[in-house]
């Protein structure tokens, strides 16, 4: 036992992601409660905003750097993180439950001989142990669980843990040049999708379903998303019909999201759809069927026709914003 926590900070395009700062803040609160030390690690080429981690209660960050590490490499990243965790004898390693976090955390856990709890939505401490709550069965139940092995790996769901008050301390940044990264597994290209904003990272989502009647009517959903600065999401029905790409699908076989505002238009609210969005903070439903299941989880609803309500809503929001 060294009483040490390590936080992995994920960078994309040389910027630490917001979800990593949420994880850093949460982990630093845990460290304070447990009276543990905490530090962070990141891997990349050049990372611009890494010192900002200090604002979230983590005062030391070690950056493993090499020009070939700008993009993710499962092999190189997991080796560097696990080696550093061993070197510092960290007991607990935190990741965000992002596409990178879900890939690297299990690799690191095997290298450390650690148990893993993924996609945690809350962490409590009881008798000096971390008790994590995480959704199972696509959010239809929650479990409280603990890791019984000496070394522990947790991933935290993005956009759930509150960043709260932040300070203005800058973290001490130690840069370590990596001589020969293990690139047996490497990203050779990133294909950006056409969507401007990914649902998994958006604060506001406007999701359209089969009630839109056809691909040609989605401009209404896109316009509403535009005026709100939101991402466009959808149901599986429209993906299967070929109206929308799978990258926009929300639900059990799509993405899990928890934005501040989720507006569902012409979506019935099937159990598999709700699975992916029920942890949204505020839910609005627009559906002409007042008995549609989506209304049972919506904070506000309009039981009307999308073709009448959407254009009016777009105008109203434009007015409210100007």
């Amino acid at each position, binding site marked *: 036992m060294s009483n040490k926590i390590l936080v992995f900070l994920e960078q994309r395009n040389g910027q630490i992601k917001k979800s990593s700062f949420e994880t850093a803040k949460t982990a630093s609160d845990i460290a304070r409660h447990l009276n543990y030390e905490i530090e962070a690690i990141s891997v990349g080429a050049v990372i611009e905003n890494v010192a900002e981690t200090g604002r979230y209660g983590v005062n030391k960050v070690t950056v493993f750097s090499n020009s070939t590490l700008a993009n*993710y490499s*499962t*092999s190189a990243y*997991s080796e560097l993180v696990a080696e550093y965790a061993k070197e510092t004898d960290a007991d607990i390693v935190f990741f965000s439950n*992002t*596409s*990178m976090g*879900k*890939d690297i*955390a*299990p*690799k690191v*856990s095997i290298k450390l001989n650690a*148990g*893993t709890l*993924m*996609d945690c939505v809350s962490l409590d401490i009881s008798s000096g142990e971390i008790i994590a709550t995480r959704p199972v069965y*696509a959010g*239809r*139940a929650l*479990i*409280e*669980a*603990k*890791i*019984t092995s000496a070394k522990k790996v947790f991933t935290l769901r993005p956009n759930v843990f509150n960043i709260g008050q932040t300070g203005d301390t800058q973290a001490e940044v130690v840069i370590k040049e990596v001589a020969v990264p293990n690139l*047996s*597994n490497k*990203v050779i290209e*990133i*294909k950006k*999708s056409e969507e401007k904003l*990914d649902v998994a990272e958006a604060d*506001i989502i406007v999701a359209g379903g089969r009630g839109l009647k056809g691909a040609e009517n989605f401009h209404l959903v896109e316009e509403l998303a535009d005026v*709100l600065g939101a991402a466009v999401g959808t149901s599986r029905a429209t993906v299967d019909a070929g109206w929308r790409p*799978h*990258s926009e699908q929300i639900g*059990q076989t*799509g993405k899990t999201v928890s934005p*501040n*505002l989720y507006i569902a238009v012409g979506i019935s609210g099937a*159990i598999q759809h709700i*699975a992916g969005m029920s942890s949204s*903070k505020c839910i*609005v439903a627009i559906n002409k069927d*007042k008995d549609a299941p989506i*209304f*049972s*989880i919506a*904070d*506000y*609803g*309009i039981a*009307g*026709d999308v073709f*009448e*309500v959407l*254009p009016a809503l777009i105008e109203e*929001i434009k007015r*409210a914003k100007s």
Partner: protein
Amino acid sequence: MKIAVCVSHAPDTATKIIIGPDNKMIDPNGVTYAINPFDEYAIEEALRAKEKLGCETIAISTGRTANKESLRKALAMGIDNAVLLRDDAERDTLSTAKALAEEIKTQSAELVFFGKQSVDYDNSITGQLTAELLGYNCVSVVVDFKLDGNKIIAEREIEGGREVVETTLPAVITAQKGLNEPRYASLKGIMAAKKKVIEEKPALESENAVEILKMKKPPMKHAGRILGTDKSSVGELVRLLKEEAKVI
């Protein structure tokens, strides 16, 4: 070369979840179990690789006898053989991965397909854990897969796009929806699968590293307010979003 595919047997996604009397797991009474939906993409991709390379395929599942149903489904779709690693205990992902890794080693399978996630505990890591235990390369959440000799080019879904990953065999691939369109089992396939013997052996025993203390229902979300039935309500809606929910 041999290709393996790991399948889990999970509650149908529309199942109503009722918490069991021990408050630690679901009440299985009345729950319909079926092959985990993501594992169908894994099977399809294994079959495509088999058709291209002409090699042997095997489906592996660890758990109770009921898992044979999902193994049968794999056989009906065209997988050559199946093995059940029998285990009646509740296992965490780590001990599941250890059992699977052991069998993959025994089978000397060099290309192994998993689903990206099992729709019970939604862990999404069994493939990655198994790869790491075996020392295999791994690409998770794959939506496009190409194998050329020893070389793999796979595309994995990430926030805002896809990463194109280059790696080599031996490897574990975890399948995401969109990778392919799983075939339906033909009647002939179903009949043939019924006749096949599914090998059964005890799963490697190992200790769990995760303990479930409690299972509970998520807090009930109170149904909200229906503000109206037409566009006359949008003013009120925008006001509430601004002033009450404070989200815009």
